[in-house]
């Protein structure tokens, strides 16, 4: 079963996106904490689309499809912004020294840590982000 919803590329869509994701993680049977990690990954992905792919709010939409499969939950997030190549992005500095520590660069890191698969592609002039969370771990 796949559900798709399209949201305007604005920060105040994030709350509605979270509600959409929560519905699906609940239906998929994930526990509260696992749902929270998926919600976080999607929020980070969508924030990045608005901030980096579109460069600002109200430039384009974000299309989210969620499939509840027997062994996993698979999420596709599509946008029409500028192509993104994550290979060029360095790992964030996680130093526990406050003065060396930066607050940015955490979004991709959290997505990768909390999802089992995170894959960016540029297809048919769209950025397509696929994220998978396995069930029953």
């Amino acid at each position, binding site marked *: 079963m796949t559900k798709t919803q399209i949201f305007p590329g604005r*920060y*105040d869509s*994030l709350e509605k996106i*979270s509600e959409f994701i929560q519905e699906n993680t609940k239906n998929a049977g994930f526990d509260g904490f696992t749902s929270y990690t998926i919600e976080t990954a999607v929020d980070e992905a969508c924030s990045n689309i608005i901030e980096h792919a579109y460069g600002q709010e109200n430039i384009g939409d974000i299309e989210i499809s969620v499939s509840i499969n027997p062994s996993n939950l698979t999420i596709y997030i599509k946008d029409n912004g500028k192509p993104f190549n994550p290979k060029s992005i360095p790992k964030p500095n*996680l*130093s526990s020294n406050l003065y060396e*520590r930066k607050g940015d660069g955490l979004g991709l890191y*959290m997505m990768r840590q909390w999802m089992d698969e995170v894959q960016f592609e540029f297809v048919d002039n769209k950025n397509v982000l696929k994220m998978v969370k396995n069930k029953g771990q």
Partner: protein
Amino acid sequence: MEISINNYKRCDIVKVSGRIDSSTSPQLLTTFNSIMDDGKYKIIFNMSDVSFISSAGLRVLISTQKNCKRYNRGELALCNLPENIKAALDLAGFIPLFRIFDTEVEAVGSF
């Protein structure tokens, strides 16, 4: 997101209820900045009613902590962390960067 501030003799408590994401985190930053603009750098952030925090919210915490600690003038301390929020702070490596208390009383009592 709703924000309340309570002023005490030696510190202020900021309490947020709701989501701290890219949409709402600027409001939180403004709140912390307005307290610091009043020359107050001992701030407790009660997170009991925070339902969600994204990296945008985490950025606000780190920049506020740096600002508070400058010249040894104060500190941002956290209290009443829900489990999910604590897991996010932990993933981001934030646990060593903040004093974290179970209750407001312990936090206030530490200043």
